[in-house]
């Protein structure tokens, strides 16, 4: 692994980014008519749609929890989303990602506000690039806000990794395959809580620390994009900087 040249002599990566650049991220809110909340995200070449349904009744009823809301989460890839066609049946990978994604979102949601109810988060990957779970979490968090679900914080997410022995932000598809480490992270920026952390690949101690901190930095960049998308949607895009902040703060309380 990692013998391919993924960073050139000018420090540019295969897609022209420097090691600290995020790919282009575009979040659009309210893209699905039927959903209670929805968002689409383009994160590099990832194209993901998220719908939130609920809070609503739980079926079957015995799955309901007396003191809190059941969060249900499905991460799913359309068959045409990958280089080689993906079989439509859910893979073990999708089962695992659905689980870590749910666990990344739960700490941010005020689940105790909706006892005996369920909130469903459906994440559909229409085109997959590296980092689809992070992109999916970021979009899901915005879709939850769009659905009016009470939240303690947004969940931002971003990966960092190691490529040609350098720690770089936001691993893309080639870097994921040819690089030597990938570390996706989900982070609540205001509460400073890490709610998803995985690592595939080899990092020594200092690389580990650098990678983790870089991923958190990336999460904060993603968070700004999430915020802007929400503000644009709900307050238009011409609010003065101060009010914007204030509104956000009220929202968080």
């Amino acid at each position, binding site marked *: 692994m990692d013998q391919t040249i993924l960073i050139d002599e000018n420090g540019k990566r295969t897609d022209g980014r420097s090691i600290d650049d995020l790919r282009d991220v575009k979040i659009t809110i309210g893209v699905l008519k*039927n959903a209670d909340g929805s968002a689409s995200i383009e994160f590099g070449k990832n*194209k993901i749609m998220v*719908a939130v349904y609920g809070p609503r009744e739980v079926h079957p009823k015995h799955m309901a929890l007396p003191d809190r809301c059941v969060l249900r989460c499905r991460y*799913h890839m359309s*068959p045409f989303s990958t280089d080689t066609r993906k079989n439509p049946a859910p893979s073990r990978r999708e089962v695992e990602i659905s689980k870590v994604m749910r666990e990344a979102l739960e700490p941010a949601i005020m689940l105790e506000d909706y006892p005996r109810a369920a909130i*469903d988060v*459906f994440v559909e990957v229409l*085109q997959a690039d590296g980092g689809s779970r992070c992109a999916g979490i970021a979009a899901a968090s915005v879709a939850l806000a769009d659905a009016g679900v009470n939240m303690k914080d947004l969940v931002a997410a971003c990966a960092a990794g190691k490529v040609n022995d350098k720690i770089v932000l936001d691993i893309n598809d080639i870097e994921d395959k040819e690089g030597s480490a990938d570390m996706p992270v989900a982070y609540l920026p205001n509460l400073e809580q890490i709610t998803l952390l995985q690592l595939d690949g080899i990092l020594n101690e200092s690389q580990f620390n650098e990678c983790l901190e870089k991923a958190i930095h990336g999460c904060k960049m993603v968070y700004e994009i999430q915020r802007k998308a929400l503000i644009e949607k709900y307050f238009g895009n011409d609010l003065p900087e101060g009010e914007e902040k204030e509104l956000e703060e009220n929202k968080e309380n």
Partner: protein
Amino acid sequence: MSLSKKSPIVIEQLRKRQMFDLITNGKRLDGRNLEDIRDLEIEIDIIKKADGSAKVRLGNSEVIAGVKVETGAPFEGLENKGALIVTAEVLPIASPYIEPGPPDEETIELARVVDRGIRESQMIDLDKLVLIPGKTVYVIFVDCSIINADGNLFDATSYAVVAALLSSKLPIFEIRDEKVVDTGKKQEPPITTIPVSITSIRIGNNIIVDPTVEEEACMESRITITTNSNNEYTAIQKGSTGYFTLEQIKFAAQTARVKAETLRTKLKELIK
């Protein structure tokens, strides 16, 4: 086993009455005439990883279709033809009434009817997609993800499939040393005709075209009729638990031919 079920979508009595009264007067809840089709928007090439793709919006029904081309064994009995496989999934993002899981009978019917509409019209000349007769052929998957469901998924999905195929570029495979090799080059798909599906439903004694989900919740029967570029009928599927009279079927068939023309013109523009 197929069984009669209650529709999960409940229309209030008052709204139902309003719908029926309007229909009797030739109008519909969304202002359309009985034979009007909702606005159709088509975007192509939206999935770069696919060999062809389209997003179709028919009113508020939205479908994405992606074409993926592989090679494989031909179907039994069709040894000297390429294989075309259409699948559909009504994603749980599409509606509050969809549970994730393996496809139910509605979705299986949807995929099969759309598939037959394409296949029976011979839209793709599958004879041209053979690498080793009887052994290795092009296998074209057209997978459909329904992302918002607001009625008439049959037509919306069919248009998405047709648009994705029309705008697709197929990889050129070759046999070298008994192995399949992707040459990296691309070819136009061998298109012979453009099938257009038109779905009508019966409410009372009225036939209305391109129903919304609300209208479908009140329908007695449904009919999906596909015609080709020569204005011939190529596939039909009657559905739902009511009947049609012979006259109603002939009326729906006639409507399907007429209505298909505008849509076919729109789809044809995708090729240039």
